């Protein structure tokens, strides 16, 4: 973790008509850090992540990436800044194989004339995907269509895809909500490996024990504002619940 946060957001405000989704939220994440964003329903977690990943735009506030002001007008802008998002519905094409999904929208074409005709270099994509999966410790059959994979394997494919393309940060909205116990452990390990590779991971989750297990730092949102932040090693489920409901956050160290 360098001194300068990788992504920093200050005073983010977002309203939809009369509904104030965010009333000045602060947020930061560093390289090689897992930050969990928690809060009750309607606290503004998803809105904040949508803004940070370029899907939505704030009414006020500033976002800095590597200390530089960033204005994401689309997910493509965030992507260009090295930020990938794993959506709750995974956004995979079930009829395509895992390798095709990993390279969806980023297909590699053959060189020369065939490439000009739009011919895919399927073998090369499969090789590169295999290398990335190996590095992440994900063992899925890359030539298998997504609909043939288990829920955990699909989730792994989605996370691995994001990890493969993210040069700086990955946002994940409830990455284990639909998974069983064993599959969840696999995805949590994958998250740690992504972090250990020096990338920032931002996690939205309702599952507090899980958050405590995998996150380095926890940021609590309540009614559109940042209540505070705490190192995962210095708090517990009861304190987090209290922070989410009453807005008081204390850490054991304080």
């Amino acid at each position, binding site marked *: 973790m360098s001194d300068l946060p990788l992504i920093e957001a200050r005073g983010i405000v977002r309203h939809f008509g009369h509904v104030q989704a965010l009333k000045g939220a602060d947020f930061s994440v560093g390289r090689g850090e897992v930050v969990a964003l928690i809060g009750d329903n309607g606290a503004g977690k998803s809105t904040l992540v949508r803004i940070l990943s370029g899907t939505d735009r704030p009414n006020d506030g500033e976002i800095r990436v590597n200390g530089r002001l960033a204005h994401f007008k689309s997910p493509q802008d965030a992507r260009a800044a090295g930020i990938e998002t794993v959506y709750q519905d995974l956004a995979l094409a079930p009829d395509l194989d895992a390798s095709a999904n990993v390279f969806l929208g980023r297909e590699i074409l053959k060189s020369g004339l065939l490439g000009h005709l739009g011919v895919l270099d399927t073998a090369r994509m499969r090789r590169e995907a295999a290398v990335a999966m190996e590095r992440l410790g994900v063992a899925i059959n890359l030539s298998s269509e997504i609909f043939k994979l288990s829920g955990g394997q699909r989730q792994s494919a989605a996370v691995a895809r994001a990890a493969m393309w993210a040069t700086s940060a990955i946002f994940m909205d409830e990455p284990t909500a639909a998974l069983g116990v064993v599959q969840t452990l696999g995805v949590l390990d994958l998250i740690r*490996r992504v972090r250990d590779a020096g990338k920032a991971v931002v996690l939205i989750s309702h599952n507090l024990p899980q958050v405590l297990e995998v996150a380095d730092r926890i940021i609590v949102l309540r009614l559109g504002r940042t209540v505070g932040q705490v190192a995962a090693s210095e708090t517990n489920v009861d304190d987090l619940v209290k922070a989410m409901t009453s807005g008081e956050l204390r850490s054991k160290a304080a």
Partner: protein
Amino acid sequence: MTKSIAPMNGLTASANAPLDIQRPSASPARRIGGVLSNQSTALFIVLVVLAAFFSAIRPDAFPQIANVLNMGADASILLILAVGSTFVIITRGIDLSVNGVLVFSGVIAAKAMVAIGGEGPYVLLVGLACAIAAGAAWGLLNGFLVAKAGIPPLIVTLGTLGMSLGFALLITGGVDISDVPESLVLSVGSGRLAGIPILVIITAIVAVAGALMLRFTRFGRYTYAAGSNPEACRRASINVTAHLIKVYSLAGALAGVGGYTSLARFATTTLGGHLTDNLQVIAGVVIGGTSLFGGAGGMVGTVLGIIIPVVLLNGFVVLGLPPFWQQVAVGAVLIGAVYLDQLRRKTRER
């Protein structure tokens, strides 16, 4: 510091365990099976059995070269349309307008060739260009209305079916144009190269090109992806709208080619001769294993799905059975094919 236990040693052993449930990797044999897919293999067997059956009963008529070539010519125009419809249906779309666009394109090509006059190859090429352009224009309109305006493809293409047929009738005053260049009829319509009808050669080129495009190019990949999960495509920065417009334009252009070949084969614009082509094409594509729910299908299946009804019809005629049984059989098989596809979809949701 409970969480610091896991990172390093958990990495290899325990971490991989839940993700390691790897399916047996595809053997070469299974890969070939995958290319054909189960449905295509089954259809191929059906085709072989039908051909063997008809040949055994009427060896003097069914397996004769003249009869086989005749079936090839019968299948050719439908198959050209079906190549385009395969792309459309894979995107979860449907194109009911192909026969209207076919007739319209034929009329435009006939008008253009008659206006230029003469019999030279230049005239024939201009006619082909006009037919393709006219077809592609209708396809562009279809694609724009479906992808940009968001109107259901069933309604859009039902509308353009009526419009294109209506315009064809308006342009001709309801009277077929029959003074098409004789050279067109003699070369494309009934000409042969090494004994194979030119019509069949043109169709084979279209089908093979379509198959390669669908399977090996980025265009084909996006066609499957757009039908499988359009939202995933959008999030992956794929312009789904633009892609759908291209797919419908391709189907329109191929309907133009179909109009040109129809003109060549029948030596007239056949204003009333293609009334059920669209339904036959959709039936063939769906019987061939392309899913109405999008994302799955292929050209091998489409070829078989078009050829089998043609063989069936021919066989009934050769056997002296009422040929209307063919319609009954194809209808029943179509319903069965979609039912099977639905069952497959249901089991994979679990």
